[in-house]
């Protein structure tokens, strides 16, 4: 039946990120501060608590991409990697934008992740165009 709302209209993507500092052997507590900002072919930029690490440290990261609001056929995607901290920019009192360069990672998984990110952006672009044209 044609409904006013459809569950798929509320489907949204979320990322669960867990971080362990391999250099200092410490885990970074799960926090709302952690955010995935930017991606590139050889690494990514995360917002992390300042205590997460320092330049040159190796971080072991797990990113789980989830589709929220989906009750059935949930398609989680997990990407594990180790990355080296190559830049840190203070964002606020407790957090930094941490640029990581991949140290150990599965190239195909990362390519899929990038492809999916681009597809998400493209589908959003198409939807805006459809509404505004």
């Amino acid at each position: 039946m044609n409904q006013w709302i459809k569950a798929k209209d509320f489907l949204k993507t979320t990322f669960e990120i867990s971080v362990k500092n391999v250099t200092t052997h410490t885990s970074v507590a799960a926090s709302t501060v952690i955010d995935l900002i930017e991606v590139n072919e050889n690494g990514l930029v995360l917002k992390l608590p300042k205590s997460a690490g320092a330049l040159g440290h190796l971080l072991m990261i797990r990113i789980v991409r989830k589709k929220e609001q989906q009750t059935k056929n949930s398609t989680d995607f997990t990407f594990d990697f180790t990355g080296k901290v190559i830049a840190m920019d203070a964002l606020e009192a407790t957090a930094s934008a941490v640029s990581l360069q991949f140290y150990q990672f599965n190239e195909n998984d990362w390519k899929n992740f990038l492809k999916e990110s681009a597809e998400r952006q493209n589908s959003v672009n198409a939807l805006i165009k459809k509404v505004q044209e």
Partner: protein
Amino acid sequence: MGELTKGEQKLIPLLKSARFLIVDPTSSRKSLRSLMSDFSVKPDQIEVVENVPDAMHVIEGRTPNVFFVEYTIGSQACFDMIRIQSERLEPGSLRAVFLITTQDSNSMVTSAATENVDAIIVKPFSFGMLKDRFCEILFQKLAPTPYVQALDKGRLLLKEEQFDEALAVFRQARTLDPKPSLALALEAETFQARKDHEEALKCYEEALKHNPSHFRSLLGSFDSYLALGKNDEAYVSARTLAQHHTIPAKRIPDMIRVSINTQHFEDLVGFYQTAGDLSSMDESIASHLGAGLVICGLHFLKRSNKDSAIDAFRKAEVASKQNPRILMRILQALVSAGLEAEMKSFMSRVPEEIRNSPDVQMAEIELLKKTGQNLRALEQSLRLIQQGIKVEKLYEIAITVSIELKRKDSLIEDLIFKAGNAFPDKKPYYESLHVKSTPPT
């Protein structure tokens, strides 16, 4: 400076005098600053703020031409700032809005698109994606096609309420595109601004011939039909809209209302079922759905379909997350229908603070009276009066029930005295209750 293509470099001189605002409570400012730097935007052209009050201060002072805003700041705040930016910018000046978010639901994107957001940058983004989207939008703004130019000119005239001039421009714009649905929809909106909904509908109809699922025309014709009181036609437009698009969150209450007006109560049940599959829903939508289901229940009650009514009330209770206003409405409906057993079962589910509220206790007293349990009605009324609760109806019930139970005249007079003190303007009415009921000697 990062590498720019020759085409991208053309934006540099065009952005020289533009003002930029980045509202970033979280994390994207570094990438956005790099992007600005690539286009030779000077630091004094960029303001970076972290919260809504600071952003509002900038928008109301040096209103930005290009506005980047993180959605985490709150949807309403985002859309309010975008509206103010649009109102304050000089007519014809550059205006671009980029919303940055991890959220990518169709519902959010459609809502943003209807609030004049030009682009949504989905996190995590690559710098290339950010730059491409930035360039695409800025080129559209700074070097528009003749069709877009004409539409912008017409929009400006419409904003200035120069309706005849706007209509002429939109009509001319029709000739500049093979499928001019947008020009026709804007022409229709000009008629709507003049409250000429019949003419508006003609334009929408024409626009839909070019594109049968044209978002703006379906939503616009829905509005015009509603304005003309043509609920059935409005319902058809809304249904077509829902078939092809996501309904923007803020318009969902209108859809609920039109379902009720056209007695499509099954829509609300369907809505409820879908909402139940979602882990969260906007509070105002949930509240509208709850209110709609109450009306649905009332409709079933009118038709003596008690089971369906109770089912609708239960759904309303769940959908609205026991919103006190909705609970009261349900209670009143149960009282009016004299459904005592259902009311008792309902009362056992409602939270204690609501159960003990004067409104709910009043409803209980009314039901007791309605079902002939006068003594209990009187006891509860007197208890509330003793607690200092002042409700007109409460005194009325206490007095009439006292008379019916043939209580001593002195006690009734005392009640009338108290009622008159609580509501001096109603004193004659309270006195008349006793006079009327006194049998002639």
